[in-house]
């Protein structure tokens, strides 16, 4: 491919064109095209579960043979299980099942906390929310229900939470900070 003579006006112009094109590329794609997360009229629901969980089973007394089998520094009269029960989370929105999941406790021995975070996109307006939590569902655990009606504004956040203290929900208020 023939080369332009070095340092000619045409070569300088070609370099100018190259760097201009490069800068247009960098300038454009560093913030365009925009990505739309929510349509106008849509809103966001955050579902939060954070529960310390309930231990499955009861402590039991060890007999003398079992105690003797333990290392001398590990001998104790009682042994208590560490494993905690899983939890089924069911969410209905406007009487339609939106989400079901059984969460297990964290940790290698299933002895940690139960935690869940999910985000849903909704249309604004009236909302009937029904959250059902069932501890240890496979062992016939009893469900706990939370049902509430909301008026959800567009472009807002609704948070529904289940913790050791029970159910709660709130819509945080917009807190604008002024631009300089």
């Amino acid at each position, binding site marked *: 491919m023939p080369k332009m003579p070095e340092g000619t006006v045409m070569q300088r112009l070609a370099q100018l064109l190259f*760097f201009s094109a490069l800068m247009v590329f960098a300038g454009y794609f560093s913030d*365009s095209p*925009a990505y739309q997360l929510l349509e106008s009229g849509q809103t966001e629901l955050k579902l939060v579960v*954070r529960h310390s969980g309930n231990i499955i089973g009861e402590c039991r007394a060890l007999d003398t043979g079992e105690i003797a089998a333990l290392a001398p520094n590990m001998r104790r009269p009682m042994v208590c299980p560490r494993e905690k029960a899983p939890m089924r989370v069911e969410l209905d929105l406007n009487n339609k099942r939106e989400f079901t999941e059984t969460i297990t406790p964290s940790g290698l021995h299933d002895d940690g906390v139960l935690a869940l975070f999910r985000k849903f996109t909704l249309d604004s307006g009236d909302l009937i929310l029904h959250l059902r939590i069932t501890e240890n569902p496979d062992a016939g655990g009893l469900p706990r229900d939370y049902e509430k009606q909301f008026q959800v504004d567009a472009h807002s956040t609704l948070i529904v939470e289940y913790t050791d203290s029970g159910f709660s929900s709130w819509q945080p208020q917009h807190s604008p900070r002024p631009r300089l």
Partner: protein
Amino acid sequence: MKVEAFLDRFFPAGSNPLYQLGAVSFFLFWIIAVTGLYLFIFFETSITGAYQSVESITHEQFYIGGIMRSLHRYASALLALSVTIHLIKELGMKRFQGPRWFSWVSGVPLIWLLFASSLGGYWLVWDEKAQYIALTTAALFDYLPIVVEPMAFGFLDGTTVSDRFFSLLIFLHVGLPLALLLGMFIHIQRISNSSTFPARGLALSLLGAMVVLSVVKPALSLGPADLNRPVQTVQVDWFYMNVFPLISETGAGAAWVILLGITIALLLVPLIFRGVPKPIAIVDPDYCNGCSWCFADCPYDAIYMKPHEKLANHLQSVVVADKCVGCGICAGACPTATPFKSVNNAYSGINLADENNAAILVRTQEQIRQHPQADKHVLVVGCAHGPQIDQLASDVVTPLTLECVGQLPPSYLDYLCRKEGVDSVLLTGCAPGNCFHRLGVELQEARLAHEREPHLRFKDVHVKVTTLWAGAGGETTVARAVAQLQQDERIADAKDA
């Protein structure tokens, strides 16, 4: 390759940005570091101060702070671009085979570090884009089964983020780039004379263009982050945030599969496409005089010197087999390769294992002697990675293909012209600055120009050497040049007559 050749038309030799992507990346890193240091002076590490201080830098001191911020942004964008092209180019040229696997594999984690460093910077602005990045990053990491309590709990609403969070962010935004710099240092460990600064003209042009862009289109924040409201629309930096819409659309699981899949695939490339192992260089202590020229010329840092096995008070070259790629540049640097010796013609101290210097000379001599009556005999020396020259073979043209043009001892050209009747020599190979073996073209040019040992003995008297670094695909250009050489010889003869 076609793009490289196209840009060659506009950029003087050695200043083609596509031939200096590593050096350009280093240069951009330093721009980011210097501008980042300036921004750090004025940055406030608090939930309200972060956004306001960045706004203040951008608008109240737009003439310097605004430009610094924009340079910080655009140099980062171009760094992502240069790294991407660098990766594609090295992949295309198979510069990951043999001992070069180290540079390839050590470069893969740098991509993660680069993204982490850059995205950390966006968090600091704490605008709507930062909010989107924070929540999406949380979703990405919360997917991992090792997470006990989801990161997203930290961004539940406006009450869950504290000032101390920004101290952590600034620590990460300084620490990760430092880790990146350390990684870049490791990345170039197995190459010698690594270029970490581009040609001055290119560097100045790049910097100037970025300053102009910073003035024309300054980097701006979106509205302040408000965790009490969802982000509706976000201006995406497609250089770094390209995976975020993917996470939003397909979920974190698919994103992890794609990201880890690409990473593992890149790491496995040298293993899957390992190619045929090339013969490495071997040292013959009987001929090595300990001059260290091969040590100085090796582009892969694969040679070191030790006390000579046979000569007292002399050094001897040692080839590190795990680092040697078999380019043969060391063989071209060996002064004992000269065929003008009275004994053991052309046997030299260091050679490639498959064909030593003496055998190359014999092969060339045999080809030339097949055409003793040739008029205007041209010897064309090329490399395995530049234009293919074997098809040029004729009664008057002898092609000699080596692994790299740097493999040819210059004394061979003296010898073949003086003793074998070669009228002119054309050296061709990879484009300048784009040598497959990094330094072969540059070193051979220096040797021919008497700027580096070993050089031509009788330059301009008996040896007519022309260089044409046409690059891969430049066969037509080389053929034209050979024809031109022969014509020039005839014209010169006519004038003499």
